[in-house]
Structure formats: structure tokens, C-alpha cells
């Protein structure tokens, strides 16, 4: 599935065509993940494009994107597979009324593939080629990490009643973390580790222009410049690319062609998600950032 991708630059160009603009490091990371069949572990502030990379990669590789959103308390039954118990019972009843009583035969038919509910990891393994996005792994508990490690190591799922299901082509695995908790070293060691930084000014302008071509160029430049300034402003939640995209969209919808103090103050809710931040910015740095 990666025949067309000969080097990081080619992958960057392919990602570019889908509307995702990676920097050199990210392109190299994704390229190596493909070539070395290693999971890619992405860390970075919220909203820097960790999740959208997986989406873009799936598009480039023409693969199915399977997303596993982690949360506290997630376990194997939600990540791997589960038996559809009610349907099994129905099947049993139906067999009974039909008068089939061969116990062994009945049992075998009970644990048939059609009663198996494939959860994200099994889906990714069954449907090659695929991109498996394990989103916000830091939210899951550490027992889950150990379990994930096992699956990632052999790209196979063993179901006692059926046997081992192995991936024809191992899925490209992308793990993301917002660093709310430190992920275990053993998991990181299996992966390529990349810290996704906020984009540079030029790249952010390019991203804004690409994703929202309808937004005036002047406005895109203003938004990128002020957002970069806000990131330096010591806020409770510095805005990511997702926020600057929202902001540009909001301003565009209000008919703005460039950023000024009035329309910025009115749409500040699109970039700053804490009341304290909004108040501080409005009262102190906003005018200065826009005037600069």
C-alpha cells in the first residue's frame, strides 16, 4: 500500500494533496512508520493536528480509517471483540424449536464468526489495508496499555473459540496523547515518537489558505499572526491550529476581510476557551497584537 511513497518528501506531497500540510519531521515520522511497520506515537498540545494526520494518511494510502477513542475504563470488550450474546441465545432457541439437538454441532454454530462483534482493533486487523487511530491513549488506564502492547506486537487477535485472526497487511497504527498522564515506557519503546509542535507562521497561513480557500488572504495572515502571538501570551489554554481555523471561519462568516479590534473581540470565543483567558486578552494584549 506504500509503493508510491518513495521518500518523506513524496509522502509530504501526497498528504499536501489531501489538504494536510505536514512539516519535515512529521512527514519523515509517518514515512518511517509506514516503512518500518512501527506504530507512530504522536504527542503535542491539543489542536495541533495529531488526529487529522491519521485521517489524511488513510486518504493517501486509500485505506480504511478505524478510530479507537480511549477513555477511562476502556477494556478489551470495547477495543477488540465481543460476542453478541442476545443473538446467540436467539439462535439457540431457534435451533431448539427446529428440533436440532446435536449438542456439539449446536455449540460450534454458536461461536460462529457471525456472532462476533468486531470492535476497532479487530476491524483494523480484518480490513487490510487500514489505519488504526488510537486516540488519546493517555485517557485509558495503564492496564489497557499493556493489552494494546500485546496486540501491536503480533498484529493478530486470538479468539479462543475461533482461533487467531492475523492481519494480511499490518495496519498503520497512529497513537495520540495529550500528555495528561505519562504513557508507559514499554509502549513508547515500540513506537516512533514524535512531538507535534505548533506550526510556524508561514505554515499556518498555508494551512488556513488550503483548508479555507474562501477566507481572504489578508484575514488568514492576520489570524495566523495573532494566534501565534496568543500562544506566547501565557494563557490557560493556548490556541491550536483547530482554533485558528475556527476563528478564521467565524470571522469570514461575519464578512471580515481583515482583523481589527472590534471583530476580534466579538469572535474571541472561537480561539480562547477559558473566560479568564478571554478577559485577560481583551483587556491587555489584544489591541497590541492586532496593531503590531
Amino acid at each position, binding site marked *: 500500500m506504500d509503493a508510491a511513497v518513495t521518500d*518523506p518528501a513524496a509522502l509530504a506531497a501526497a498528504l499536501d494533496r489531501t489538504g494536510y500540510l505536514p512539516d519535515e519531521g512529521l512527514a519523515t515520522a509517518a514515512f518511517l512508520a509506514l516503512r518500518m511497520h512501527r506504530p507512530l506515537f504522536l504527542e503535542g498540545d491539543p489542536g495541533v493536528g495529531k488526529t487529522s494526520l491519521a485521517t489524511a494518511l488513510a486518504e493517501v494510502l486509500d485505506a480504511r480509517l478505524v478510530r479507537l477513542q480511549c477513555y477511562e475504563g476502556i477494556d478489551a470488550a470495547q477495543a477488540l471483540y465481543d460476542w453478541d450474546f442476545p443473538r446467540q441465545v436467539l439462535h439457540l432457541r431457534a435451533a431448539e424449536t427446529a428440533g436440532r439437538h446435536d449438542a456439539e454441532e449446536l455449540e460450534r454454530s454458536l461461536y460462529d464468526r457471525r456472532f462476533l462483534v468486531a470492535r476497532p482493533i479487530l476491524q483494523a486487523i480484518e480490513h487490510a489495508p487500514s489505519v488504526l487511530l488510537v486516540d488519546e491513549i*493517555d485517557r485509558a488506564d495503564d492496564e489497557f496499555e499493556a493489552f494494546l502492547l500485546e496486540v501491536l506486537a503480533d498484529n493478530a487477535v486470538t479468539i479462543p473459540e475461533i482461533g487467531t485472526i492475523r492481519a494480511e497487511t499490518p495496519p498503520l497504527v497512529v497513537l495520540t496523547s495529550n500528555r495528561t498522564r505519562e504513557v508507559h515506557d514499554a509502549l513508547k519503546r515500540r513506537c516512533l515518537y514524535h512531538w507535534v509542535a505548533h506550526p510556524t507562521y508561514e505554515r499556518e497561513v498555508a494551512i488556513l489558505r488550503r483548508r479555507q480557500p474562501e477566507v481572504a488572504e489578508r484575514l488568514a495572515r492576520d489570524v495566523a499572526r495573532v494566534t501565534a502571538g496568543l500562544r506566547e501570551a501565557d494563557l490557560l489554554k493556548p490556541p491550536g491550529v483547530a482554533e485558528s481555523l475556527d476563528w478564521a471561519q467565524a470571522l469570514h462568516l461575519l464578512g471580515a476581510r481583515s482583523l481589527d479590534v472590534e471583530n476580534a473581540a466579538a469572535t474571541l470565543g472561537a480561539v480562547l476557551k477559558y473566560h479568564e483567558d478571554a478577559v485577560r486578552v481583551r483587556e491587555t494584549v489584544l489591541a497590541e497584537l492586532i496593531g503590531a
Partner: protein
Amino acid sequence: MPALDIVMGFARTLRHAGVPATPDRVQAMVAALDHLDVANPTDTYWAGRLTLCADPADLERYDAAFAAYFGGAGVPARPPRPAAVRLRAVPLDKGDGGAQPGDGSTRTTLASRQEVLRHRDVSTLSAAERDEVRRLLALLAPHVGRRRTRRYGPASRGAVDLERTVRRMLHQGGEPSRLARRARRRKPRRLVLLADVSGSMEPYADALLRFAHAAVRVAPFNVEVFTLGTRLTRVTRELRRRDPDAALEAAGAAIPDWSGGTRLGDALKAFLDQWGQRGAARGAVVVLCSDGWERGDPTLLGEQVARLARLAHVVIWVNPHRGKPGYEPVTGGMVAALPHIDHLVAGHNLAAFEQLVRVIDQS
């Protein structure tokens, strides 16, 4: 194969710089280079960074080691400097404490030099202290208060557990029998220890870190330990070592501002920005050990403690002076923080630590 030698030599340099470049990671780097252009310094840079680093804190050291070993070429012109890189040593003082970072570009090199210069040996310990630690270790075994999780477990009463009930039916040929029940499981809350290691706290810092070590040993992945002084330093990883002396020595080496000044408000803010708000302090039991001597602005400290109180389940303040007769919380920092804390306990002797264990357990 000369390329291999070069990589091995680089890995050695990296280990000296404090990045744990283990053999399997070095192997991964060699494999990565296989797919890239070895002659291109940028490719070499990324092959190493993606495989040898595993933490934002590693990146800065990696960049320095790479520049030292391969020369400047290859390192991105404007190295991405994530906020969390500053975790290890966040320069906070602006007016005191010797050499000060001037602008952003020199800050990091200065910080790492200070870190090296100010390494402090805390390995000389008396036998009495060691005994005390063993007692503390045994004492902290009663854990942190528990909370309900989203996960369900079997229970004797509670809602019907559909899945297990049906599975049980299946075993009995589809005949309904006893109902299985389930209830939310319970899990200990996260414990966060924030220890002030400034000059005025020096006599207590050793005991505090030993207490922290005992707590980490009981539940290595449920406890986080940070030291506050002129900067914020995370020492959880160092304290996970089994041997208390080795753990304390490692922690001592990691803390660059041992016995310096206090900018409690700034350090607490750094903790909340980089860890607390993201999840470390949410719903946790937070123990802040300090005498409340604040060189910075007490208003900032008040604000930050209020912010902490909104995130945490319980905020416990341990003040060694609390145990002394006639103590009144009158230092500027203490007065500002007092309205937002749930418990104020002493921390000057073993009995006080025993009391602290009880408070943690009951919260």
C-alpha cells in the same frame, strides 16, 4: 560498518546527555536510516529523534547532543520547542539567583548549565534516617481515598449485569437462571505531592522527599511528585527506584534549584499549566508542602491555589511550622492561600507525617 560505529558513538553521547538511548532504540535508529538518506544530515537528525527520544524533555537534550556530535547541520533552524520541554527546569526567576536567562534563545542552554552546576549530593544519610523511612514506608501503605470509576465489576447487589446474565444463560442451554449484578468499581484517587525545596524548607526537604518516595513505591503509577522552588521539577520518575537512597540521589541530581529562593506562585502556576489542568490534578488529592514563604507576589499564589482547589478533590497544605507552639499562619503566602485549602497539617516530625497519612487516607 563505519555508519554503525557512528550511530553507536552518537548513542553514547546521548546517554551522557541524559537521554535513555537503549540498545533496542539504537537498533531502531539503524533500521530507520536504512529507509532514509544517510548522507543527508536532516534525515539522520530525524531518524535519531524519532527513534531515540520518547519524551518532550528528551528533545532539547537530543538537539544539543546532535549538534555537538554531528556539527550544526541537520538540526532544524527553528527547533520546535514544545511547552512541556521546559518541564524539567522551568526558569521562573527574573531577578534573583545568579545567572539569569536573557532572551528565549539562550534560556535553554543556561538552564541546562545551571542544572549541571547545581547538582547536589544528597546520598549521605544516617542510619537513623533510614530507619525512619522504613517506618514511613510501612505507614503510607494505607492508601489514598477511593472514587468510583466508569468501569463495572461484579457485585452482589446493584443493577442487572445483562452481559454476564446472558452468558450464564448460554452455558445452561438458554435457560434463564440467576441474575448477575454489577456495580461501579472503585479506584484510589491520584495523589500529587508538591514539595517546596527552597532554602527555608531545607531542613525538611529530605524527609519530604523520603515521604514522597514511600508514596511512589506504594502506587508507582498513581502518585506524581514535583518539587517547587524557583522552578518546577518533576521527580516522579527518579523516585520510582526501589532503593530509597538511590532514588533520593537521583532526585537530588534532577533538582536544579535545591535550597534556592521560593517563587511558589510561579512554580505552582507552572505545575497547573503543564500538568495540573491537563489531568494530573483533576479529582486528585493534592498535598502541598511548604512554609508559605513567598518571595513573589502573594496575590498570584492565592489565585493559583484557588485554581488548584477548583481542579483537585482535596488540597492539603503541609506546613512544618504549623506544629510549633504559638504558630499563626501570617506569612503573606499562607494568608493568601488559606481560604482555598481543605486541611492545614504539620510536617515537622514523624508524628506529623503519620497524621498526614491519616488525612490523605480519609480524603
